[in-house]
């Protein structure tokens, strides 16, 4: 079926079954490959996108459930929080293999958008669903604090 999708500031018409996870529409139909497939069961967070600004696991989010909501992917994040998070990630060289990092960044932006000054415990609680097999977690924590400081400055 034809579905209108508001994504990254544009409206795109895509052809997909209603139950198709948003992830595969983004990746295979719209060719935006920054959002990753890691588990397909909302257990690793690699597929995290923003739906109306809220982090969501796109691998279990049916495309038909998006409706009028705005989808934002890693390719188009541009809020001050997003810029600070990306800059902090680069400054601290958080990434290793990098495959989960789009999802980590999308979650971190979500955290800083709702909590400008998170504690270590806040970070652990919010980021607990984003797995990183390279175990870059210590740097993720540090980069979120750094981004928070950048936003404050």
């Amino acid at each position, binding site marked *: 079926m034809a579905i209108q999708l508001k994504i990254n500031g544009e409206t795109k018409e895509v052809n997909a*079954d209603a139950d*198709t*996870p948003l992830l*595969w529409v983004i*990746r*295979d*139909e719209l*060719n*935006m*490959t*920054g*959002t*990753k*497939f*890691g*588990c*397909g*069961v909302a*257990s*690793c967070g*690699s597929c995290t996108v923003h739906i109306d600004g809220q982090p969501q696991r796109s691998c279990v989010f049916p495309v038909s459930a998006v409706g009028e909501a705005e989808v934002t*992917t*890693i*390719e188009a994040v541009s809020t001050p929080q997003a810029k600070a998070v*990306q800059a902090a*990630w*680069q400054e601290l*060289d*958080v*990434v*290793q*293999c*990098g*495959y*989960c*990092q*789009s999802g980590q*960044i999308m979650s971190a932006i979500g955290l800083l958008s709702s909590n400008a000054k998170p504690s270590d415990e806040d*970070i*652990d*609680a919010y*980021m*607990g669903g*984003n*797995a*990183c*097999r*390279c*175990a*870059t*977690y*210590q*740097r*993720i*924590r540090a980069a979120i604090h750094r981004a928070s400081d950048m936003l404050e400055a």
Partner: protein
Amino acid sequence: MKTSMNRRNFLKTTGAISASLVVGFNTSGALAASDSGAQTDTLSNAFNPFVMIDDSGVVTVLTKHFEMGQGTTTGLTTLVAEEMDLDWSQVKVGFAPSHDDYKNLAFGGQGTGGSTAIGNSYTQYRQAGAAARDMLVRAAADAWGVEADSVSMSEGILSSGDNKGSIGDFVKAAAALKPVAEPALKSMADFKLIGKDKLPRKDSFAKTTGTATFAMDVKVPNMVYVTILRSPKFGGTLKSFEAGDAASVNGFVDAKALPNKAGVAIYANSTWAAIKARKSITAEWDDSGADARGTAEMVSEYTDKLNADPTYDVTGKGDLAAVEKAAASAEKSVSADFMFPLLAHAPMEPLNCVIEPTAEGGLRLHDGCQFPMITHPTLAAIAELPPEKVEIETYYAGGSFGRRANGASDYHVEAIMAYLALGGTKAVKLVWTREDDLAGGFYRPMSAQRATISIGDDGKIANWAHRTVAQSIFKGGPLEGMAVHEGVDHFSVEGIVDTPYQLPMSIGLTDYESPMPVLWWRSVGHSQSGYTMEVLMDMAAEAAGADPVEFRLAHLDESVEDQARFAGVLKLAAEKSGWDGKPMKGKGRGIAVHKSFNSYVAEVIEVSVNDKGAISIDKATCAVDCGIAVNPDVVRAQLEGALGYGLGAIMRNQVTMTDGVVDQKNFPDYEPLRITDMPDVEVHIVESELAPSGVGEPGLPPAGPALANAIYAATGKRITKLPLESNGVTFA
């Protein structure tokens, strides 16, 4: 193993036509250079580029190793940039194609593994940079009519007196010169980039903006997506299949038996349709050669083998049982049985690759390719193509931990089978799901070990009898000759037989056999031997009534370099962690030290116990001696990551089987380490002038025993069967 490809074609495909000075090595390892385009030097020797400099002065380094996060794109680039005195932002990086010229000098073929990337490239990539520098300097000297030694080069600018110009201005003239055979390399005192803290990673920007390309992101024209329905049991083969309602899935294209009967390929127009359609397919399997054992049976078989006389007398000291008996009857002795589970690598990017036909009648593989030396000839043989008709394009790999390096090239073989079954005219993209990954075999093997140790009157270890039962990783594979000697797979006993400790050891080994494929998993045999050795050293120290650090040092002769480096990291980690050997209320500290991949790592882990007895891992202090740390921040990152990867596995990971079928379906059943588990990690690097050694793996082996020893210190529980959570430990 020879692989070859059309060199001229490579520069075309990477769009590097404007490169004007190309420096590299030919197959015999000699430096060679040319101008852009033709990859033959002035003497018509074919070679492959390692460094390319275009006429705008941009330098591109081609890395012969793939990047799975371990930092090679940064590391190899640093080596070239150092010798050329480049501005860091002036250097770009690309992946080398598949070609024997790019062999890993530690392996003799192109591949990444064994924590060898920096070590084997250290001189080679510096030579490439130094040769390019020397040619540019000579070209400038010629143009200016001055002596070459009056010309200096820094940050892409050549100068002599009043003469000044960009390196880009001289690439054409430099390319007409012959490289010197052995260009002079900088002395360590002159390093500006090597050892600098910190040089930004080359892959950070792309990986934080969603623009880094992994093989999973590749889409080529005329491509179908493929999933495979595999035998639920290892060793099962396909008898027949029914497509069921698969055709009712939108986007379904076809389903075909793989020519090697390994499964059914399901073709579709999208990944999702290929995943969905697979659920409708039913298959019948021939299980006559399949393994139907469950984990309980396997554990019992391992135990039986552990109790029987070992097949191999690794140390050549004769009757192991007699040594054990004598050791056990000593006044002070310890003994323990260890059991290690199967582990999956579970890299974040599920396995996948793309194979497409080329205009020349060959094929091109798009892959985060770890072992081109195996994959390239394997694809050529199956497709019945000469090797030069096979090309490999390498992408960032979303982790590997050993999984993508595989003597059987398992997922590439699946992809080429699926490609050929469809006629070889359409590109295929093979995608594994996480369920496929966890059930897909090639696990870290199980291992059962038993040690019996006696303490002599001098308070030192008088006898150490050790038996190991393990499934050999290397037997029957392409690297068997390198690893197996007189029946003993070295990797089944590494870290024990070659420990730097001065120990009177007697070692026996028995192989376990199974059709289930096993594979190296980050740090290979050290992932088990690090645990046994360092838990045992703690137990022995206790039996001897000695401090764990003092006891370990008593078994090292620091006049020997190897042992001094081992002792050095042990002392450094102890000092930095504030080790005092005193008990702490509600807390515990454990220490472990291990040598692997020619690097030395000691780790101290501090845990606390809450009122319900659950453990929190609070802090880790690491000390590493890896020779010269080319990129100290990458070294730190690898130590942090290897420690975390090791802890997660030791805490709670295991692959188990019921009647030959894997029990774990997805991450909820094989829970990765989470941010909530990760301690604060501090890494201290020993300053060194020795050649660089590995850092991707050596941080892992000490992590588990340091944790186990800390748990013992805090709770009195000595855990020798893993994972910890299945054996009486609860984490907060």
